[in-house]
């Protein structure tokens, strides 16, 4: 039984990273209608930045977390300004293709400099035993960190003026523009928040996983699966879907087959989209 519980905890921890990445993606995809496919590669850049700061620069882990989030927030704004802003008004597939260009660029950049995968040391390298389950502390940090960021995001969106402006744009873009919300400033803000969340996920996960140039590509596909299933722009959907996918994946690895785990996740997406072409909860035309 404790084996099963351990898998559940690992699933929640896997899900935590999915939730953080999918939250950013659902904000961008749902609110701005940009299929930001390079989101997973921003996550990858976050992980490498952590490596540079922590291993090469000797910065404290928690300080590195804040620096990474801030730096990636700026990077997100730059990506929005330089790449997606000029594509406004062109078919939505064009921004998808621009994102693929970004993926090739970022992956080649990192792979060209450092082709092999790297390890980041754990800030607290210990294990705890609770109810017969032995766990690495870092896995619990991932879970706790994700919860903190989810709560912070909720507070930001519900309680601050900027956050409510983002929500207003999610509900009705033209209406929001009509009452004087600057759409372009909100786009930049959305990108900043979303990319900072991806950086947080990367920094939390890096010590328990290895970091590699291609770590972002499958992750972003999974995040898309979550976003589409959870409903575009739906924060609740992203949280629910992320944890669910994490737990299902952990159980699939433990009990069925680790080689085919991605096949299950993406197969489910194809089946669901075949039945409901606009996602499980999204009634909107793509």
């Amino acid at each position, binding site marked *: 039984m404790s084996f099963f519980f351990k898998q559940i905890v690992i699933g929640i921890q896997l899900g935590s990273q999915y939730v953080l990445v999918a939250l950013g993606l659902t904000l961008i995809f749902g609110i701005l209608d940009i299929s930001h496919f390079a989101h997973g590669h921003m996550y990858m850049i976050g992980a490498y930045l952590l490596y540079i700061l922590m291993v090469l620069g000797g910065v404290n882990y928690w300080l590195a977390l804040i620096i990474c989030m801030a730096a990636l927030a700026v990077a997100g704004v730059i990506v929005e300004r330089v790449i997606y802003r000029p594509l406004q008004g062109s078919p939505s597939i064009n921004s998808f293709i621009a994102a693929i260009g*970004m993926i*090739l660029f970022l992956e080649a950049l990192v792979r060209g400099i450092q082709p092999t995968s790297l390890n980041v040391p754990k800030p607290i390298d210990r294990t705890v035993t609770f109810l017969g389950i032995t766990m690495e502390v870092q896995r619990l940090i991932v879970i706790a960190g994700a919860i903190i960021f989810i709560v912070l995001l909720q507070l930001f969106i519900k309680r601050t003026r900027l956050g409510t402006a983002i929500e207003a744009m999610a509900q009705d873009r033209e209406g929001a523009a009509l009452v004087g919300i600057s759409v372009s400033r909100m786009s930049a803000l959305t990108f900043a928040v979303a990319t900072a969340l991806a950086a947080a996920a990367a920094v939390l996960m890096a010590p328990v996983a290895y970091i590699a140039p291609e770590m972002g590509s499958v992750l972003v596909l999974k995040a898309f699966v979550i976003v589409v299933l959870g409903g575009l722009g739906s924060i609740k959907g992203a949280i629910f879907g992320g944890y669910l996918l994490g737990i299902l994946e952990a159980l699939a690895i433990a009990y069925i087959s680790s080689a085919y785990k991605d096949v299950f996740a993406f197969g489910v*997406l194809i089946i669901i989209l075949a039945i409901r072409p606009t996602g499980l909860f999204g009634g909107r035309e793509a």
Partner: protein
Amino acid sequence: MKKYGKPAALFVILAIAIALPLLLNMSRRGKFQIQVFTIAMIWAIATLSLNLILGYTGQACLAHGAFFGIGAYAFAICVERVGINFWPSILIACLVTATLGFLVGLPSLRTKGPYFAIVTLCFNVIVYNVFENWTWLSGGIKGQTVTIPSYLGERWVRYYLVLACLVLVLIIERQIVKSLLGSSLIAIRSNENLTEAVGISSFRNKLLSFTVSCFLVGLAGALFAMEKGSVDTTVTNYLYSFYILIYLLIGGVATLAGPVVGAIGIFYLLERIQSLKEFRFLIFGLILVVVIIYLPMGVVGGIKQFWEWAKDKWGKPAEAPE
């Protein structure tokens, strides 16, 4: 004079393409270049197939890497394990790919825009995973070798075979685009709802376009397996979907010359700067972003636009307005 300008240009290009291996065969280093051009033309066929579904029908399929690999494997397995002759095997590979394309198209073409791109990309990842893990099918890391008939042993024979296929595919695509089907596809690309409203079944046309596209990319895959002499799991990688997309977009969507120029030009360039290794894709990622922002019709589309603009500006004035 003007009337014969275009056929004459095409004739010259074809003549150069036919003469090229003869010239390359003369030098020792040139011999290896023949294979580079052969593979470049195979990619041109794959890019033309993507052009049909993305360029003319407006559906961004990101599974062409998977279908390319399926075509290559279907061909290799037919020749090696089933023991079918070379030519029927190519046809079977195309048919297998087209059938799979039809089956994948049935659910996935109900989705639109980026959703379709995501679904097809997911399919590609699934195919890649299956080929990686199901070693009975894929032959594992070693892959599957292909023995080809002895009369195809020389590089230049295979070059002409691929060239003939490329010309055939170009003619097929031209006929499709000029036909009523082509007009329907372009109408779907411009406005799907309006197309439905005037009584054209957009789903059926999209499915047809997708199936034909898969048939052609299957051909490219089979030719690739023939040229390489073996296939391994990398042919199903979704990176190939991205590469084909890059060839198409940089060359020019919705033109017949664009995919050929894009695929052969970029593939040849990539081979030339092989010493840069990974940094090549850094450059190409950058070019892709710049092209999609500033030159959404690609190089050939850009040249066409410039030509029109130049004719307006410097050419003889058109009929005076009444």
